């Protein structure tokens, strides 16, 4: 479904992503791991159009998407969450999800209808399924960090993506929140058959839910394979234990 081929992207002289390769098949859950500064977030930003690659190809369902605008890429079926919580903090939980639904339905240029109550059914359904329904009228800035992260996933989900990208979904979460989050990701994959690409520092979590793992070091792909293969790979061990860890 997604194919990243020897993509290079540099900030000034620093090559943040240097020849990364990645393949994600339909319905897979793929994790990207690597030490801090390995270029994981940059890679995600390249895929979702927040950055443009210097060279290399990014193919989604066989079409080149490198360098397109984020909103165009979203329309093609990729939505995401960010490492640092990125939601409409001044809107309510309900409104956060509502905007995402309206955007998907291309109703954002509608200046005649009353927005109140639009798409309510779907929004409530989504909120119920992520467990935020009872907080739907709370201004989202007032939510706990964990709830905000979950809300962001709900927002990303409301775009009905084919590929969902999660940048450190459990970063900064309390243990029990992490637990909930993992269950949520599983559920998404099982119930909706979503393809998920995520990166994470918590190795337990990675090996728990990922079907395949891609290891990035210094902007390049070190290895790609099943959890078992990656665990046994000596280069990975070097990178994490002997290298820059």
């Amino acid at each position, binding site marked *: 479904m997604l194919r990243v081929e020897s993509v290079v992207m540099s900030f000034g002289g620093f090559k943040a992503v240097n020849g990364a390769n990645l393949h994600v098949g339909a319905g897979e859950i793929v994790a990207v791991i690597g030490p801090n500064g390995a270029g994981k977030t940059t890679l995600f930003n390249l895929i979702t159009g927040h950055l443009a690659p210097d060279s290399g190809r990014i193919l989604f369902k066989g079409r080149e998407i490198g360098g397109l605008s*984020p909103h165009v890429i979203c329309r093609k079926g990729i*939505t995401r969450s960010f490492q640092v919580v990125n939601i409409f903090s*001044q809107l309510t939980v309900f409104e956060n999800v509502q*905007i995402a639904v309206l955007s998907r339905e291309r109703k954002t240029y509608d200046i005649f209808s009353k*927005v109140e109550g639009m798409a309510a059914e779907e929004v409530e359904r989504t909120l119920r399924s992520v467990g935020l329904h009872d907080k739907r009228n709370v201004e989202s800035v007032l939510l706990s960090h964990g709830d905000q992260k979950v809300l962001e996933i709900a*927002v*990303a989900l*409301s775009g009905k993506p084919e590929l969902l990208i999660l940048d450190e979904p459990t970063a900064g979460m309390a243990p029990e929140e992490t637990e909930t989050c993992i269950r949520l990701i599983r559920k998404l994959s099982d119930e909706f058959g979503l393809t998920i690409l995520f990166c994470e520092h918590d190795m337990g979590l990675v090996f728990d839910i990922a079907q395949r793992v891609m290891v990035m070091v210094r902007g390049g792909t070190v290895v790609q394979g099943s959890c078992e293969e990656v665990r046994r790979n000596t280069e990975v061990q070097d990178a994490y234990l002997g290298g820059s860890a």
Partner: protein
Amino acid sequence: MKHRSLVATLAVLGLLCALPPFLPRFYVYIASIVLLTGLLATSLNLAIGYGGLYQFHHTVFYGVGAYGTALMLTRAGAPAPVAMIAGPLAAALLSLVMGVICVRLSKLYFGMLQISLGSLVWVTVYRWYSFTGGDDGIHGVPLPDLIASAKGSYYYTLAVTALSLLAMRRIAGSPFGKTLQGIRDNPVRSEAIGVDVKRHKLAALVIAGFFGGVAGSLFVVVDTSAFPDMMFWTYSLEVLIMCLLGGMYTFWGPFVGSSTLVLLRVFVSVYTQYWGLILGTILSLVIIFLPDGMLGFFARRFRKGEVRGA
């Protein structure tokens, strides 16, 4: 709830309709100015309050709306209805052109580029004697008898302002309005859910410019004139002040703020020449102590202790 707000709206409208026979003509005139300035401030708020766009030079559209209407009436001799719509359309068109150039810049840069472009428009109007009348402005614009008298122009202004406010209220409460608030709140998130941020901003600018232009065409009806000073940058800042004073993040705030300032200005400048001192003091107090503006402040006190949105 809905019923009550409808009653309140009708009551206010009824009151405004009933005013002229009881007011001296001068106050009818001032009331018209209050209404159209309120419309101007509300239109600016659509861009700056809802869209978070640093629309620093909004009165350019006010001025172009006025000149568009006045020139159509004087030079082209167009029928009044055509002129009334030509001004706002010209303003919307200009807003589109300026928007295309400005929209990719953010915040302060956006504002400054807009001031620069707006000043170009101002200079052109100010200098182009043979067409715009230069610094003299245009006077004695001929109007149909129906709207030429003080009362006639008042009722016309009231009707157009009410309709425009209704339309803007509708837009603010539409999916587009909500999206705009989302963009103001978080443009990156907006893009990531598939919203074309630039285009929405552009649309907001055009709408704001159009209604700014409507206010300008109303000015021609009320004052039978148009002046280059209408679009000088200091006036733009004054309109910004009106929005801030009333409350930038509320729909009615700018209207309240502009009414307060216009009335204050008319009555205070009769007694003192230190209007700047008064305005400056009020403004700095508001910014320091009530950054949400008067209405925002009231609203806040009102809902203290409540769960938001319950």
